[in-house]
C-alpha cells in the first residue's frame, strides 16, 4: 500500500524508474534474441540501410547496428554503475569519517576533496585515458570513480554533522553504544535517501564522462559500448553521409537513459525537499 501511494504521489520518480528499466531490459532481453557475433566487424555488408535481415542496417565495418546497440547498452551501463558504486561508496565512507570524527581528519579529507573539486575532471580523465594503452569497461569505470567521490562526501558529511547533534544520537552515545553501532543502526538508515540520490547523480555523471571519453576514441575498443559506436559514427563521417540508421539509435537510447535518470533525480529531490513539491 505504501508503495502504491508513493507511485501515485511521485509520478516523476515512477516514470524515471520505468524508463530506466526499459533501457536496461532492452539490453538484457535483446541479447536473448540477437547473436553476439552480429555486433562484430564484418557481420554484414558495410553501410547498408535497414532491411529484414538487419533491422537497423549496418555500419561502415559491417556490424549490425541493432546488435551493436543491444550489446553496447549494457557495456555503457556497466561503466556507469561501477563508477557510481565505487565513487559513492568511497565518498560516503570518507564523509562519515569526516563528519563523525571531525578535527584533523576532517580538515585533511576536506582539503583533498577541495583540491579534486577544483581540477578539471573531464580534461584529466581524457589525458589519463589516452595514456593507458589497454583498457576494459571495468577499468574505465574505476578511472571515472577515482574522480567522482567528492559529491557523495559532501552530502554525507553535511548530514552526519546535523545528525550528530540530534537527541537520539546523543542518547545512544550516553548509553554507551559504540561508534560503529551508532553509525550502522542509527545513522545509515536515515542517510539512505541521500545515498540513493548520490548514486543516481553519480551514474548519470559517469555515463556522461564515459560516453565522452569513448566518443573521442579513448575508451575500451574491444568491448561494445554506445560511446564506441558514436566514435565510429564520427570517425566514418556518418553524419555527412546521412546514414541516419547508424547514428540515431545510439543517441535515442542514451537520451532515454539520461531522461530516466533525470526524472529519478527530480523525484528523489521532491522526497528530500518537500517544499519544492507545492508549486508547478
Amino acid at each position, binding site marked *: 500500500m505504501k508503495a502504491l501511494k508513493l507511485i501515485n504521489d511521485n509520478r516523476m520518480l515512477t516514470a524515471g524508474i520505468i524508463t530506466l528499466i526499459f533501457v536496461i531490459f532492452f539490453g538484457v532481453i535483446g541479447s536473448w534474441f540477437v547473436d553476439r557475433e552480429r555486433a562484430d566487424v564484418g557481420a554484414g555488408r558495410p553501410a547498408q540501410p535497414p532491411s529484414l535481415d538487419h533491422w537497423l542496417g549496418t555500419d561502415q565495418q559491417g556490424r549490425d547496428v541493432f546488435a551493436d546497440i543491444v550489446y553496447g547498452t549494457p557495456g555503457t551501463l556497466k561503466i556507469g554503475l561501477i563508477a557510481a558504486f565505487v565513487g559513492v561508496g568511497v565518498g560516503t565512507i570518507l564523509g562519515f569519517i569526516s563528519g563523525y570524527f571531525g578535527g584533523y581528519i576532517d580538515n585533511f579529507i576536506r582539503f583533498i576533496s577541495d583540491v579534486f573539486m577544483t*581540477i578539471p575532471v573531464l580534461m584529466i580523465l581524457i589525458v589519463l585515458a589516452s595514456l593507458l594503452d589497454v583498457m576494459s569497461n571495468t577499468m574505465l569505470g574505476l578511472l571515472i570513480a577515482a574522480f567522482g567521490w567528492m559529491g557523495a562526501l559532501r552530502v554525507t558529511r553535511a548530514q552526519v554533522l546535523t545528525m550528530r547533534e540530534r537527541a537520539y544520537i546523543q542518547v545512544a552515545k550516553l548509553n554507551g553504544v559504540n561508534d560503529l553501532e551508532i553509525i550502522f543502526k542509527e545513522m545509515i538508515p536515515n542517510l539512505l535517501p541521500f545515498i540513493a540520490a548520490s548514486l543516481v547523480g553519480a551514474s548519470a555523471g559517469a555515463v556522461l564522462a564515459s560516453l565522452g571519453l569513448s566518443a573521442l576514441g579513448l575508451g575500451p575498443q574491444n568491448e561494445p559500448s554506445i560511446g564506441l559506436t558514436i566514435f565510429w559514427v*564520427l570517425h566514418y563521417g556518418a553524419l555527412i553521409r546521412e546514414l541516419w540508421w547508424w547514428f540515431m539509435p545510439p543517441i535515442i537510447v542514451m537520451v532515454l537513459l539520461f531522461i530516466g535518470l533525470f526524472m529519478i533525480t527530480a523525484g528523489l529531490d521532491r522526497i528530500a525537499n518537500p*517544499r519544492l513539491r507545492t508549486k508547478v
Partner: protein
Amino acid sequence: MNAEYVLKRFLLFLAVIVVAVSINFIIPRLRDTNPIKERLYQLAAQGGVNVGKMEEMIEVWEKKFGLDQPLWKQYINYWNDVIRLDFGKTIADFTPVINEIMRSAPWTIGMLSVATVIAFVVGTVFGALLAWPKTGNFVKIFVPFLMTLSAIPYYLLGIVMIYTFAIYWPILPTSGAYGFGVRPEWSIEMVLSVISHAIMPAGSIVLTSIGFWGLGMRGMMITTMGEDYMKFAEYKGLKENRIFLSYGVRNAMLPQVTGLAISLGTILAGSVLVEVIFAYPGLGNLLYTAISSNDYFLMQGIMIFVIVSLGFALFVVDLLYPLIDPRINLQEQQS
C-alpha cells in the same frame, strides 16, 4: 572577510598547482616506453639513421633533455620551466607550446562565455517566472521541453544539430570558427562568419543548460516567496512588478550569480567534446590534437595552463562570494 579565510583559499590554490605540476611530471614517466627511443626508431624506420649507433644517440639525447639526471633534479628542473611558462615545443612544427595555447584560448573563452551568459539570463528569467504564481500558463508549456533538453548530453545534441542544420537542411556551417575564404581581420564579413560558425556549438550548450539555471532559480524563488518581507511588501500595497523584481528576483538571484561566477571561472576546461565535434579551434580541440599525435609537451602545457588558470579563477570567485552575497556566513561555510 577575515584573513584566515583568504589564507585557507590561497593555500588550496597553491596545493592545486603543486598537484597539477606533479601529476604532469609523473604521468609520462609512468609509462615504460622511452619517448626518445620511440621517436628515434620511428626516424630510423623512415631511413637515414644508423641503427647501430642508436644506443649512443639515445644517451646523447637523454643528456640533452636532462633525462640522465636523478629524478628529484628532473623534478626541480621541471618546476623551473613551468614557472617561466616554458612548456617546450610542439612535435608537429616546433612552435612553442605557449604560443599554441594563447592562439586557441580566446576561441574557447569567447564562444563559451557568450553561451554561458545567454543560458544564464534566459534560464534565470524563466525560472523566476515559473515560481511566480501569477505567471500565465503559456510559460509552463516550455517546461517539459527544456527539462528534457537539460537531461541530454550537449555533445549528443550537437551531433543531432549538425545533421539537422548543416546537412539535412544546410543553413549553418558544420565546422571551424570562420569560413575558409574569409581573412581573419576586423571586417563585417569576418564577424558574421564567426557568429554563424559559433551558433551551433554555442547553441548546443545554451539549450542543454537553460534547464539547469531555470531549476536553480525556481527553487530559490520559491524559498524567497516564503519570506516575511514578501508578505510585508504585499500588505504595504506595492505594485506586483515591484514585488516581483525588487523583492523576489533580486534576493533569489544572488546564489545564481555565484553560480555564474563559478561557471565563467571554469570555462577553460569547458567542453572538449563540443569543440572536437564542431572542429572549433579552441583549447579542447588543441588538447585532442595533442593526444592524437602523442605530443606530450603540448598535452602537459595545456593541462598545466588550464588547471592553474581554473584554480586561480575559483580562488577569485571564493574571495568574491562574500561581496556578491553578504548573507553567506564564511564561518558557517567552513564548518
